[in-house]
């Protein structure tokens, strides 16, 4: 019986290491990529997509200073005409389904966690546009995408080379932009990843120590009984 439970214990401890790596079992947020992705997001994606779970003030977690974030937000005009403040939620484009030909673009706050394949899927959709192969008739206002289930997506290919100019000098190819905006969306889906891993390492080390102390105490007490 002990063997079985020891095996179960080992499986539980090892299991997370074998889990889907795109959800970040180990690892941390790539802040530099996420900052670049924020620029891509604001330039290209924010026109159509909402990011309703994120406030502008949350961007400080990406390594930006409060002044930088305030300046970034001040450049965005909200629905009421006022510039955005730090405590506003990311601007919702607020356009109905009619403006998009029937399908409202999904809120991207959690998109990386909501799709099978996570980061690989989102990056794949952004870079997966191709000419429709022979025999495939595109629906009106749809585009062919190799990653999207069914192959036909209502979103046009929005990433172009040099659509943005990165502050850190990274060349802004379409593939780079896709990778960076995916890193940004990975962060929005799981903003607590870094804190979680940091605390987690310390918690696990402490609990290993506590288990050791507990085993020593128990053996000491039981030695005097038997």
């Amino acid at each position, binding site marked *: 019986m002990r063997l*079985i439970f020891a095996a179960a214990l080992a499986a*539980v401890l090892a299991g997370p290491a074998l*889990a889907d790596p795109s959800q970040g079992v180990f690892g941390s947020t790539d802040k530099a990529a996420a900052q670049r992705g924020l620029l891509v997001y604001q330039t290209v994606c924010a026109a159509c997509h909402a990011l309703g779970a*994120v406030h502008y003030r949350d961007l400080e977690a990406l390594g930006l200073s409060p002044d930088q974030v305030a300046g970034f937000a001040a450049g965005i005009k909200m629905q009421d005409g006022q510039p955005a403040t730090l405590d506003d939620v990311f601007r919702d484009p607020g356009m109905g389904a009619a403006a998009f030909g029937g399908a409202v673009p999904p809120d991207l706050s959690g998109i990386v966690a909501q799709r099978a394949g996570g980061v690989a899927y989102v990056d794949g959709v952004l870079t997966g546009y191709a000419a429709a192969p022979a025999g495939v008739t595109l629906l009106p206002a749809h585009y062919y995408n190799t990653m999207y289930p069914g192959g036909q997506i209502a979103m046009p290919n929005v990433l172009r080379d040099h659509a943005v100019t990165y502050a850190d000098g990274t060349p802004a190819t379409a593939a780079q932009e896709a990778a960076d905006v995916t890193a940004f969306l990975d962060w929005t889906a799981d903003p607590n990843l870094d*804190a979680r891993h940091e605390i*987690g390492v310390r918690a696990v080390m402490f609990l290993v120590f506590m288990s050791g102390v*507990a085993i020593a105490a*128990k053996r000491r*007490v*039981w030695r005097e009984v038997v």
Partner: protein
Amino acid sequence: MSTEVKPSWTASWLPFISNWQTGLAAPVLVKEAPYLAILPWLVSVGVIFLTLSGLVLAVYYSPAHAFESIQFIDRNVHNGWLVQSFHETGASMVFGAAYLALLRGLWVRGYKAPFAAVWIWRMAIFGLLLIAGWIGFTLSGGAMADWSLTRAAQAALLLTGAPGAFGTWFFGGPNGAGTLPRMLVFHLILGVLVLGGVAAANSARKAVTPVPPRGAVAFHPYYTTQYFVALSVFALIFAVLVFFAPRFGQPFLNLVPADPLVVPAKLLFPWYLAPLSGLGSLLPGIYGGIIGVVGGLGVLFALPWLDRSGPNYRPGALYKFLTLVLALDVLGLGWAASTSSGLGSVLVMVFGFWYFLHFLVLTPLVTAMEAE
């Protein structure tokens, strides 16, 4: 000279504490009880922890905006993500301990007289935990949770007679604005009922546990130290999951907010509800589902009577082997109920059939055989 001992202040003001301390020091326990007997206690500790974390979540949770309020907790409450993970992963830990306790109970035949009453109370706790776990799942406001609640409420409305009356009362009509607020209250009530069940099971156990004639030990320090080891290992596994695999065993599609206009292709549950959902899909229709779920738990309640062995306690090799097969069967049932492939639906039938075969046919036969 009088040698009166002044009663301690707890004896006068909080007698339950001084009674508890006396109980801890009373030498009434057998020596060297196995670690695995601590599993039911880990379930109770887990439930208390779920109550604490659940109360903190309830401060910020809004049943009218379920998904958004949980996002708010995760992103805007200080350490909210940790409290939410405590609760969600804590539920997984409680069920993990409960399933293992159940397995161990089957292995050592913990339901044999005079422990039948203890077994029934523990099975009642397990049933209440499953209902509370399902309601907690619906409270998450995700696409899977909302669809599960919608289907359950619809099914309840289609029942007739007494089950129909109960179902309509429980859900209060189809899944709408008023459903989650009542689910929240039921979730809290079930937590209280589970703690009551734990108290009942504990008192039933103490009533039938004999005091060893010699060499008895007190709970403190012999079992306080052993329980602390068990708690430390339990906490270690919990920490690994909370910090490195927080979405362990949860359907990722439940992270999509509920939308009544979008129906998931397949209804997926957290891992601890998957085996029961598999049993519920064995027979067609609403009544088939009810028979599967109630029957699946009912055979566990009926074990003291399904087991045909006599006063001889020791389980034989065949019984142990079949118990292990049952454990693998339940794991397979949970896995098969969670896959979308055609193979999955076939395997659900196979594993579900074996589950009922094990309890209704094999258990009476094998235990009667081994008793000779």
